[in-house]
């Protein structure tokens, strides 16, 4: 039989026609999306359940009579909906995600697999402790790693995220001060470069925030700090390495000053990934520090959580750790101290129901076991080297905010964009067209038009070189007057630049049926 080769092989023919608008709204592989409320219906479902039996209800007259209004989709429709949506997201698995201060490193899939083992994922937090010894071992081993890596006395595992860990540390400080009859100490010193969570946390703990100035070298201004000390100072909240990507070289002196003034030293551990395995915060005079397991120990960011913020505590603060925590009994079994009255210390209370983010503990422990003490140290060194390499390659084209080497992230200001008509925001949006997630922009606040680049240790040299080439190209384009490339960006993303002002002025925070939505719009 003869081969049927009608229409084959195709040949690529040059064609200068503009890309047509499609009838479907798709752009090739980029499929159109709609809301589930537009495609689903309340009588459709993607789950098959056994028939109900008709048992007499015991709802005490509280049976729901209204619809939830929530549409259902069959499984194929649902899968397609979410896969199409997923394709409108950028991710570390797609490319470099140099979002400063956020530590977007590789998320190993072994960690996902381990977190789903039934002895961790399918155990209830209130099963008898005799039936959850394996899960408690994960908590105990993770604690050992965290305490050893930080050189601290104890760790409170339960905080659910970084900001929650800050709350834990600051509440421990408040409890310690109260116990010492120092309840009048209510002022907390926070550098102006700090993460927004720091002042917000201090206020949530009932403290008053007093800002400390930054010195011209991007670090804490020691002389300003000294003038702010006094017998009403509860402590300091300091990030180290700081948000400018610099190590606070006077950190021991800062710790001594705070301690001499009767206060405590809270360290924001968001940037611990720069020094893990190389420097122990306990050797720097820190009293409390949260560790973002979702940064340093690579539990996935998941589009905004779940995080996990275990908080390590010094000898002075350890007795005030919240419940629950794991203890080893005389017979070697593990137990949970869940009630404040059962504790040997003076816990400041309970922060959450249950024991914290177990699913993140298993992932972080898997990361630690995989890397080992040697790999964790190497990861920190590579993260710092990668940032310095990017800084060195870009410093001719952009303006580093500070001289000298950086830690795990490189900070630039926008002085190099002066007169180009391009802002940091425009530059960031043009990076989207280049296939990169933009760096952190306009943070820290102490640097004008800040651009904070954190490559992490997960990037190869080839990947960094490609990034540098792209950034250099953009920098040259900005300086040569090609402003349209920036002010109109992004051009190649699934949507053009979005109107955030409009969203905030007239908030639409949930779907409404079209009739109702029109009514709202008309009002």
């Amino acid at each position, binding site marked *: 039989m003869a081969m049927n080769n009608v229409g084959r092989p195709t040949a690529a023919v040059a064609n200068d026609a503009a890309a047509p608008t499609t009838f479907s709204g798709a752009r090739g592989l980029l499929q159109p999306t709609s809301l589930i409320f537009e495609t689903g219906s309340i009588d459709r479902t993607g789950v098959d359940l056994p028939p109900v039996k008709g048992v007499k209800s015991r709802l005490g007259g509280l049976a729901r009579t209204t619809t939830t209004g929530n549409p259902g989709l069959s499984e194929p429709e649902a899968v397609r909906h979410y896969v199409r949506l997923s394709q409108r997201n950028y991710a570390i698995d797609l490319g470099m995600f140099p979002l400063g201060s956020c530590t977007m490193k590789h998320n190993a899939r072994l960690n996902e697999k381990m977190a789903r083992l039934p002895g961790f994922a399918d155990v209830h937090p209130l099963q008898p402790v005799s039936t959850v010894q394996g899960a408690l071992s994960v908590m105990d081993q993770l604690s050992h790693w965290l305490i050893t*890596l930080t050189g601290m006395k104890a760790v409170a595992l339960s905080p659910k995220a970084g*900001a929650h860990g800050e709350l834990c540390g600051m509440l421990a400080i408040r409890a310690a001060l109260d116990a010492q009859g120092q309840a009048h100490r209510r002022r907390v010193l926070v550098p102006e470069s700090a993460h927004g969570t720091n002042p917000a946390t201090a206020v*949530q703990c*009932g403290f008053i925030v007093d800002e400390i100035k930054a010195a011209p070298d991007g670090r804490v201004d020691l002389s300003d700090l000294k003038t702010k000390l006094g017998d009403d100072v509860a402590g300091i909240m300091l990030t180290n390495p700081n948000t400018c990507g610099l190590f606070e070289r006077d950190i021991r002196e800062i710790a001594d000053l705070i301690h001499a003034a009767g206060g405590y030293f809270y360290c924001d551990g968001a940037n611990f990934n720069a020094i893990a395995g*190389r420097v122990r915060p306990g050797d720097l005079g820190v009293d409390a520090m949260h560790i973002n397991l979702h940064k340093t120990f690579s539990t996935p960011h998941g589009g905004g959580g779940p995080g996990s913020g275990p908080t390590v505590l010094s000898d002075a603060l350890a007795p005030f750790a919240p419940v629950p925590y794991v203890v080893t009994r005389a017979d070697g079994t593990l137990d949970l101290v869940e009630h404040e009255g059962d504790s040997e210390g003076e816990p400041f209370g309970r922060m959450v129901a249950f024991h914290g983010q177990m699913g993140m503990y298993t992932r972080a422990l898997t990361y630690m076991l995989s890397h080992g003490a040697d790999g964790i140290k190497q990861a920190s060194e590579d993260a710092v080297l990668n940032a310095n390499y990017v800084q060195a390659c870009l410093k001719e084209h952009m303006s580093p905010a500070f001289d000298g080497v950086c830690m795990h992230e490189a900070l630039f200001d926008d002085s190099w964009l002066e007169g180009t008509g391009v802002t940091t925001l425009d530059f960031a949006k043009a990076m989207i067209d280049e296939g990169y997630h933009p760096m952190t922009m306009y943070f820290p606040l102490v640097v004008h038009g800040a651009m904070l680049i954190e490559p992490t240790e997960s990037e190869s040299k080839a990947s960094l070189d490609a990034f540098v080439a792209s950034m250099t190209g953009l920098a040259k384009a900005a300086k040569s007057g090609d402003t349209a490339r920036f002010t109109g960006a992004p051009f190649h993303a699934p949507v053009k630049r979005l109107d955030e002002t409009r969203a905030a002025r007239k908030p639409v925070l949930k779907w409404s049926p079209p009739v109702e939505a029109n009514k709202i719009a008309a009002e």
Partner: protein
Amino acid sequence: MRYLPLTPSDREQMLAKVGVASIEDLFLDVPEVARLDGPIHNLPFAQGELAVERHMQRLSNASMAAGSVPFFCGAGAYRHAVPASVDHLIQRSEFLTTYTPYQPEMAQGTVQTLFEFQSQVAGLLACDVANASMYDGSTACAEAVVMAARVTKRTKVVFSGGLHPHYRRAARTLAKHSGLEIAGLPIAINDEAAVLAAVDQNTACVVVQCPNVFGTLTDFTELAKAVQAKGALLIAVFTEAVAFGLVTPPGEMGADIVAGEGQSIGNSLNFGGPYVGLFATKDKYVRQMPGRLAGETVDADGTRGFVLTLSTREQHIRRDKATSNICTNSGLCALAFTIHMTLLGDKGLKHLAQLNHEAACETADAVSAIDGVELLSESFFNEFAVRLPGDAAKAVEAMAAQDVLGGVPYSRLRQEPGFENVLLIAATETTTAEDIASLADTLKKVI
């Protein structure tokens, strides 16, 4: 090391470009006394996948998985069947390995799913508006309390005795440091009258729960009106979101703020976390809400798109004036929730809720038929309380020794005189007739 792409020669070339001789030169700002000369002692070195997996598997084997035995634990965490597609979809790289959608043009997948999540939560709870999630139910409850104080500019908080004790403790921790005065009512299965009596001119809110920690269902419609007439807010808490497929939702009872746990839709037990806090309120309070909010807008071409919005409430803008210090929320758990909810739809959720209720009714019948066991919850959804003739914690321990996880003793949550014999028992669609028979047999033997 399989996760680190740099080779020794890469490192050399890069150090040269930076202009330093060795990696040590990049750490010179570290005070000399704090510089370590090698890897930290007392920790193992790197291991391959096989060795790590073996270690973790051994630990997993040392716990009794809920799915391997008859299982009746609830009290704030519930075991439901989650469709396989949910876990597959949340593990897609583009959802799993992305960040908070700060650059919405390259995060429409995340922001649109959050918008759909908010819409579903508002529909489930019958509230005007829901946020993009909190850490869990207990922290959502705590944030609701401090929000009520902000809204009313009052400082007293009344906790119902039917509130989950962990929620009460977590809320107390946050509230007392915000300068609030706590009025915790005695533990009770129903204390509507006492709650209203505790409200005075300075009361910011009352916190009630339905179904409450004993499983009991209470209509708060009249209480809400009475509380609001006194200028306070009613916060309705829940720990089992599936309930509102069958039970009157808190928004319909007039709750001002609704805060609860969403774990039971889309998420596994995970030994207590991560979970997903649901938080909803009335339109008029939206600017006092904590947490992230996704909103609809258009792009430069007029095409519909979604962004995070009203961020002037938040810490990264407002710093010490923010409504909360919350930054990260529970994105991936919220995604699991919204996917499972989409698969269920209104019809599937109602069906699922009915199956839960029926399983609990049958379990309650089997258990209360045992001599000496008293059913304490007149009405309930999928969880109820019984009083045993003896100590409930001991009974649970004895049942576990016979491979039955027979519920949660109330004393595990709070050590309260008079409640030592109270056992909380939950059943879901995963509960079989054989499970119920095993529970009844075993409980009979151990009490």
